[in-house]
């Protein structure tokens, strides 16, 4: 026995380890950021969602990304019992990956846990702010959920609520247990997360037996990994790298980019100035250049598949001369149109954001505005974007990207347009009323109610809307999987088939 043999043997073993063990039904998915936690109540964060949502942790209801309708998942059915109370009937025979059976107590615990102040779960903070939710167990398979104030879309909200066993402690878990078709079998922080298919899943057996998640923050690397066979799916690649029609798919990602105008400060308090800003932007020029060709020019805060957002509104045509004329007019009325306006961009917000902002800066300047561009990281950006503003009040246009993949504008409109909305740059009584009305409206009237709110915001030129964005995924040719709007927040392994 000599050292050299041992050493060579070791090296050989190391080389063989890894790629050689992959089976035909295994997939490798490369995400853009490492998961900081694997806590189900955090799965509204896109990367946590892509691993956990509906793979490990399921929800009572599920949103159909194609038509915005609501589908049953853990709950077979639900009904409105008035006064803000909804009753959910659970599917029978569902088991958690730890072997226990799903019952109403688990749902109750999950809701309480998600909304607990001791945990600061993102799902709680993001979807259930400003309301009180009270779960009441009726029997093992029936639960009443009451909200105050009443929520016409409570079943929709429940499509975000991940369900964990009643035994889950009130702290972030490192070994998530859920009812989904997969269970987490390994988590090597910094390296990978491995999910294995459960044999005792209550629903249909999916094709994928094992999924390995890797994390690479560099766009080009993620794209290259699918090309070299090191990964099968990269849910997010840069549009620049999406060059292979066979593997690269564009999908609307429910994100809307816009410039939030602060209309409380001169000269942005003048509607003509805001209109002029809208006219100064040559939106067409971006498409197919800095912004993917499949992106849509936005007229609303939410994507067209959202309730009430399917109506025909339009953005003003590109008209720098018209913008100048409007400015002159405002100037004649004593509006300080020469004031420097801060154009604030958020670094890394979407691919090419810096270039887009540079181009916008150029367009505004061409139309006669005095605009100063500043690109900042998120911590500073928030100081300008969200109330209470930590930054000095200056006339500003804050670039932002809003994501509403829940199908209902309620998640957007209050925050962005109500006087009290945290990111609202406008305060208009009519608009406030329209939002409040629509929020409280249930049933068929809800769509037209939102459409009205959209229209008021549009007529006020409250923002400079840019695009409903698309994302790009690269999927290995050995898989039968087409990314959809849902890919932005989840990646259901059960939807992946093999060619």
């Amino acid at each position, binding site marked *: 026995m000599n050292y050299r043999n041992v050493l060579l043997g070791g090296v050989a073993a190391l080389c063989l380890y890894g790629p050689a063990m992959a089976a035909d039904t295994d997939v490798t998915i490369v995400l853009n950021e490492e998961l900081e936690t694997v806590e189900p109540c955090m799965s509204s964060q896109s990367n946590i969602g892509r691993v956990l949502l509906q793979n490990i942790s399921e929800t009572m209801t599920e949103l159909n990304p194609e038509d915005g309708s609501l589908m049953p998942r853990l709950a077979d059915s639900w009904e409105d019992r008035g006064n803000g109370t909804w009753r959910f009937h659970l599917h029978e025979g569902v088991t958690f990956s730890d072997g226990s059976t799903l019952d109403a107590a688990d749902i109750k615990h999950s809701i309480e846990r998600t909304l607990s102040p001791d945990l600061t779960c993102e799902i709680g903070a993001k979807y259930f702010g400003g309301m009180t939710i009270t779960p009441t167990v009726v029997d093992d398979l029936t639960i009443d959920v009451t909200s105050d104030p009443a929520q016409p879309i409570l079943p929709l909200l429940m499509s975000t609520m991940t369900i964990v066993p009643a035994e889950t402690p009130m702290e972030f878990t490192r070994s998530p247990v859920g009812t989904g078709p997969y269970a987490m079998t390994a988590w090597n922080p910094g390296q990978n997360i491995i999910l294995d298919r459960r044999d005792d899943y209550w629903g249909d057996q999916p094709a994928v037996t094992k999924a390995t998640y890797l994390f690479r923050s560099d766009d080009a690397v993620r794209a290259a990994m699918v090309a070299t066979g090191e990964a099968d799916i990269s849910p997010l690649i840069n549009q620049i790298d999406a060059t292979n029609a066979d593997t690269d798919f564009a999908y609307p990602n429910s994100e809307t980019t816009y410039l939030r105008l602060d209309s409380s400060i001169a000269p942005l308090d003048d509607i003509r100035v805001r209109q002029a800003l809208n006219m100064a932007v040559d939106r067409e020029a971006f498409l197919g250049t800095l912004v993917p060709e499949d992106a849509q020019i936005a007229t609303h805060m939410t994507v067209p598949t959202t309730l009430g957002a399917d109506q025909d509104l339009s953005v003003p045509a590109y008209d720098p001369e018209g913008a100048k004329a409007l400015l002159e007019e405002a100037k004649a009325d004593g509006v300080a149109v020469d004031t420097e306006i801060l154009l604030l961009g958020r670094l890394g917000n979407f691919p090419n954001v*810096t270039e887009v902002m540079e181009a916008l800066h150029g367009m505004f300047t061409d139309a006669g505005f005095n605009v100063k561009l500043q*690109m*900042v*990281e998120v911590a500073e950006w928030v100081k300008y974007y969200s109330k209470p503003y930590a930054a000095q009040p200056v006339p500003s246009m804050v670039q932002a990207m809003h994501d509403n993949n829940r199908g209902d504008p309620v998640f957007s409109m209050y925050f962005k347009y109500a006087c009290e909305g945290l990111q609202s740059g406008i305060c208009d009584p009519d608009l406030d009323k329209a939002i409040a009305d629509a929020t409280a409206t249930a049933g068929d009237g809800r769509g037209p109610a939102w459409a009205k709110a959209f229209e008021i915001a549009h007529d006020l030129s409250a923002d400079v809307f840019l695009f409903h964005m698309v994302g790009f995924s690269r999927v290995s040719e050995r898989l039968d999987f087409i990314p959809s709007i849902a890919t932005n927040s989840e990646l259901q392994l059960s939807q992946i088939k093999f060619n």
Partner: protein
Amino acid sequence: MTETQTEAVPKTKEPGKFITILRLLWADKVATTAAIFVLIVIGCAILGPILLDGVATKANLRGRNAPPFDLSKGFLMILGGDQLGRPLLARIIVASGNTIAVATGAVVASMIVGSSLGLIAGYSRGRLGQVIPRLADVIMSFPSLLLAVIVLYMLAPSVGNIVLVLAITRIPIYLRTTRAEVLEIRERMFVQAAQVMGASTGRIIFRHIMPMILPTLLTIATLDFAFVMLAESSLSFLGIGIQPPEITWGLMVAQGRPYLTSAWWLSFWPGLAIILTTLSLNLLSNWMRVALDPTQRWRLEIGGKKNG
């Protein structure tokens, strides 16, 4: 050398300092080329922003990523267009202004502060001599990225503040070098000779010690110049450096990086500018190390023909 010294002082007239330096430079052709390149860059840095600023910032989205070596779009597009259709050549020239300003500012500031502290630390035998090196240790182990975030968050990501960040992180280099040299030089005989004459501390430091350290500091500064340019570029890559609409070479490389496979010229030309400039500075610094050292200088003085 002592073997060949003669008692008689050579009668030849010594040429002026500047001429001597030029002659020494000419003896090293590689260094001469490097010096000329650096001069061109400095020229661009001073004149570029004045002459070309308008051209370099004029976006043309429909003509983006225009390939290089195509003269039909005008001379400025010879290196191609960038992701907004702006001529790369013009942008590189304009960006040299900020790039050189950042590098020069950071190097000069850190050299002045660092070497002053180093002088004090090296010359004072009291508590300061103990405390200042600790300060250097603290700066050395303070994560430079955190420093960048602190400064850029509290102030703004402007050229001046980038200079501040980079200057602070480079202070220890000068501090440590100066201190080590002072510790050695202050024991030299000619310093004692000055003491015997009654020279004040200030005089000893500025007339006797400083001129001895200066060549070493200049050599380090030249190398550091290159380092700072690369560091600035890395900050841009990580998104905590200079931000548009300001431009630097580092930022251009960082912004062009995603296009590496589709439009290589976006990051290649500014990258080349960085490489050539740092390379020139490194070569110049190598030359300076020889030219400033009397025991090495003969290599240049005799070796014009064979000893580049």
